[in-house]
């Protein structure tokens, strides 16, 4: 849930330049730099960071040269996302003999939005408590009128079925030996209209998927039993083979129902 927002678009910059008191107050009264960086996310986002950039002038390269590699990007590169994570407090529950402790974290995001020429439209600060908002959700929030991001995002086809999964290219179920314990590449399996697609968690959204396998190039689909559950095995027409550990909703453990759901979908496509 987005709780706080500090926007520095063309209008607010103009307001600041005119000495508009309300516009300046909005920037100065934001206490969101409280806390300390967790060390897990980037630490170079400050309250004043958006003011480094000038809408209409700063380019995409200019933002990256100043802040470094973005943490997320929209598929059309119309938006760059940067994330920091501050520890704002600690909690402890327990009594005699033990307990559990943790931290209250606050995520802050800077979303820089660009026009078709790669010039900054606006740089906006967002913040959430209690967990990270997925990058996709942060970057697909409604964009400004001049942005190309919304129209491009809308043009992107939505997957018919999507599951977190681990991809094991070249692995045929539990073959070769030792394959049962291979971790695979973590990501998302997307069943699109005509293709089976795998997108790695580590890749940016503007990069080509790790795997795009047209349904017409699939010869067989099966689900193998193995030590920790079920493994989906897909054979391609070119002799290629791919195995997938399809994971449950939390993306942690292989999930039998999820594997069977994907297998059922693929079988239906093959028989179509």
């Amino acid at each position: 849930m987005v709780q706080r927002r500090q926007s520095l678009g063309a209008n607010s910059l103009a307001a600041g330049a005119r000495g508009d008191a309300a516009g300046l107050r909005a920037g100065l009264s934001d206490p969101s730099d409280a806390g300390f960086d967790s060390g897990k996310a980037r630490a170079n986002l400050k309250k004043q960071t958006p003011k480094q950039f000038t809408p209409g002038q700063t380019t995409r390269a200019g933002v990256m040269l100043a802040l470094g590699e973005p943490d997320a990007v929209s598929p059309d590169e119309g938006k760059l996302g940067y994330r920091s994570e501050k520890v704002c407090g600690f909690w402890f529950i327990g009594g005699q003999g033990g307990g559990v402790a943790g931290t209250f974290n606050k995520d802050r995001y800077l979303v820089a939005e660009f026009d078709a020429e790669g010039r900054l439209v606006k740089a906006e600060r967002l913040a959430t408590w209690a967990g990270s908002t997925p990058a996709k959700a942060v970057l697909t929030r409604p964009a400004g009128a001049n942005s190309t991001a919304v129209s491009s995002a809308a043009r992107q086809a939505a997957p018919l079925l999507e599951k977190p999964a681990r991809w094991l290219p070249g692995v045929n179920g539990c073959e070769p030996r030792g394959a049962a314990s291979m971790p695979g590449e973590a990501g998302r399996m997307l069943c699109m209209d005509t293709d089976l697609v795998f997108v790695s968690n580590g890749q940016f959204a503007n990069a080509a998927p790790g795997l795009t396998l047209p349904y017409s190039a699939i010869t067989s689909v099966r689900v193998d039993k193995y030590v920790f559950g079920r493994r989906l095995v897909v054979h391609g027409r070119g002799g290629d083979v791919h195995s997938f550990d399809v994971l449950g909703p939390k993306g942690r453990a292989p999930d039998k129902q999820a594997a069977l759901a994907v297998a059922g979908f693929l079988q239906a496509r093959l028989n179509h």
Partner: protein
Amino acid sequence: MKGKSLFAMALAGFLAGCATSQPLKGNANLPDFLADGKTSRAEVALKLGQPSGRFERENILTYRLGFEPKNKGHFVVEREARPEGWPTWLHARYSLVLVFDDNGVLRKHSLVEVN
């Protein structure tokens, strides 16, 4: 007596193992080969390998660099992302951003301290 000497040998081996230092990671001069207006994209690929990010039709490449304080060495780190799509910067301290012109020659670069 034999047991004691075996124990002493085992202890000596253990301590020797502890004393063996791992080679320090990184190269203090790693980004020094970069020269705006001179360095080509091919040279960068040869020295640094695969970038962690490619933008604007590969006119912007980004690398994540770890840092070893003992030798002030930089080394390339792979991007690690969580399922929500946000990466961690636990093992990377710097982001190297390289902007190339249409001929593949480095136009601008910056080494940004990220974490």
